């Protein structure tokens, strides 16, 4: 005779959840919004803010990197050089843009274009939106670190106004490589961090799925960076985030950009370099 399968015990303690799952923390919400599938990307802003935008391609050495869009445009009649990290929307675009992860040739194109702007006295706008610089064999072979390092040094001596805006993900050195500006802004729901929350969690908790906890620890929101004196301002986003009304988000960026250009345009090249240097020189005075 087969043993009877035990009937579900009517007296066993039922498993209950005492509270609904907590809503995501503010930092994690920001991470999710910064990566939102419908969040406006660089080209969405460029088409709303500029007239006569024409791209400039290639690093003159190896290739053209579609993860960085660079070009000449006119912002309210003023000529402005734009250098921006670009993510893709659909699968095909994502692959083309390498998920917004630039390779060395992208950073070298960016520098080449910024130096053209410097030569002709045109202000520069950079838009930062990347999970990080591409970590691959070919990128290492061609000197990813050298390309980023050179941009950091060379951007600091550009004798023209440089305005940087983190519009989505400010992914570590890959974002900073375009981020040495006189004014550095973050969109309200953008994040800017030394390491992605997932990678940080993989290191400190040995569990990449605990990104939310790591996001809290890393202090990566716009308010955090403003508090630490690492950025100059926060650009408000409409409603639940920029994706709910891209036109309004672009409008807020327009206001800020106009303000920044009005402040910086009267300065001489030497003053601009000095201003930028002074700002970064003061970053990180947190000593006992």
């Amino acid at each position, binding site marked *: 005779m087969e043993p009877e399968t035990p009937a579900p015990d009517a007296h066993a303690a039922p498993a209950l959840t005492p509270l609904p799952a907590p809503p995501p923390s503010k930092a994690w919400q920001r991470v999710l919004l910064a990566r939102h599938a419908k969040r406006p990307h660089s080209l969405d802003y460029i088409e709303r803010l500029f007239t006569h935008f024409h791209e400039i391609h290639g690093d003159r050495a190896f290739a053209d990197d579609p993860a960085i869009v660079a070009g000449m445009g006119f912002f309210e009649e003023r000529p402005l050089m734009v250098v921006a990290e670009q993510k893709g929307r659909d699968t095909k675009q994502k692959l083309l843009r390498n998920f917004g992860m630039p390779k060395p040739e992208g950073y070298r194109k960016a520098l080449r274009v910024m130096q053209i702007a410097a030569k002709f006295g045109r202000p520069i706008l950079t838009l930062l939106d990347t999970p990080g*610089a591409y*970590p*691959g*064999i070919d*990128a*290492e*072979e*061609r*000197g*990813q*670190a*050298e390309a*980023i*390092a*050179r941009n*950091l*040094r*060379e951007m*600091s*001596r550009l004798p023209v106004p440089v305005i940087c805006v983190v519009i989505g993900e400010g992914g*570590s*050195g890959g974002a*900073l*490589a375009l*981020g*040495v500006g006189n004014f550095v802004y973050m969109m309200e729901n953008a994040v*800017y*961090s*030394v*390491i992605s929350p997932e*990678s*940080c969690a993989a*290191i*400190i*908790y040995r569990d990449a799925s605990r990104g939310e906890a790591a996001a809290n*620890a*890393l*202090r*990566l929101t716009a308010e*955090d*960076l403003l508090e*630490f004196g*690492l950025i100059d301002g926060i650009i408000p986003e409409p409603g639940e985030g920029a994706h709910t009304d891209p036109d309004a988000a672009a409008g807020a960026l327009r206001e800020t950009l106009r303000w920044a250009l009005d402040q910086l345009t009267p300065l001489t090249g030497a003053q601009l370099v000095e201003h*930028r*240097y002074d700002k*970064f*020189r003061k*970053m*990180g*005075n*947190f*000593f*006992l």
Partner: protein
Amino acid sequence: MPWFRRDKPLAKGEEGEKHVRTEGLWLKCEGCRQIIWKKDLEANWNVCPKCGAHARIDAAARLKLLFDGPYEVLDANLCSSDPLGFVDAKPYAERLAATQAATGLSDALISAAGTLAGRRVHICAMEPKFIGGSMGCVVGEKITRAIERSLEQRVPLIVVSASGGARMQEGAISLMQMAKISAALMRLDEAKVPFLSVLTDPTTGGVTASFAMLGDLNIAEPKALIGFAGPRVIEQTIRQKLPDGFQRSEFLLQHGMLDAVVPRVRMKEYLANALTFFCGPVT
């Protein structure tokens, strides 16, 4: 009844097994897996006398290797205030205090001034044992101050890197040190004061992607791991095993990213020669 009998009693002191303390006297070389007398290794600046593998050395040994004699340590008491209040397995503040106690250093870098082959130089040496040699606000500030002193006094600067990159526990503040140091190096560059970057095992992440790659010369020790992304991150991204020698000094030299690969025992000579070439003979 035993077949053999000891006629004479045991000599004094021969009883039982002999015990000689050997722990810590011998080391196994990571390169050739041979056993090496620890003192031989130390006398050779931690370079294996049998296969030439370069084991890591700490910042103090590095300074001793490069300076002619005594040197002056600068900004020694700069300590991070843990601006983020970062907590992982244990609070960052506790981790810092423990590491400070273990190493006797305030952070992952010693900034020093002295003479190299008779010439006055500033040398910053990173300490790989201090939270992976990572760069937070203290490392950033110390290097920046060293650059400023070099600029003011027109004294050549040498930075010896050994670091996993920017320090996660100080978040974006660490990140911005990359820009701060690189901007200061721009000024040194404009003033035409030499900056020599020495890359040692390991130099990765935000340190490679800022000052370590910005030397007038970038010189590495043999077989040092040098790169932007760590090998594990790359393996996860491309889901393949990386080839042997990938991201090692010789690989970077082959790809045009380094000016020279120089063995540790020849490093001082190489640097002295470069400085004589750039600045003329010592007066």
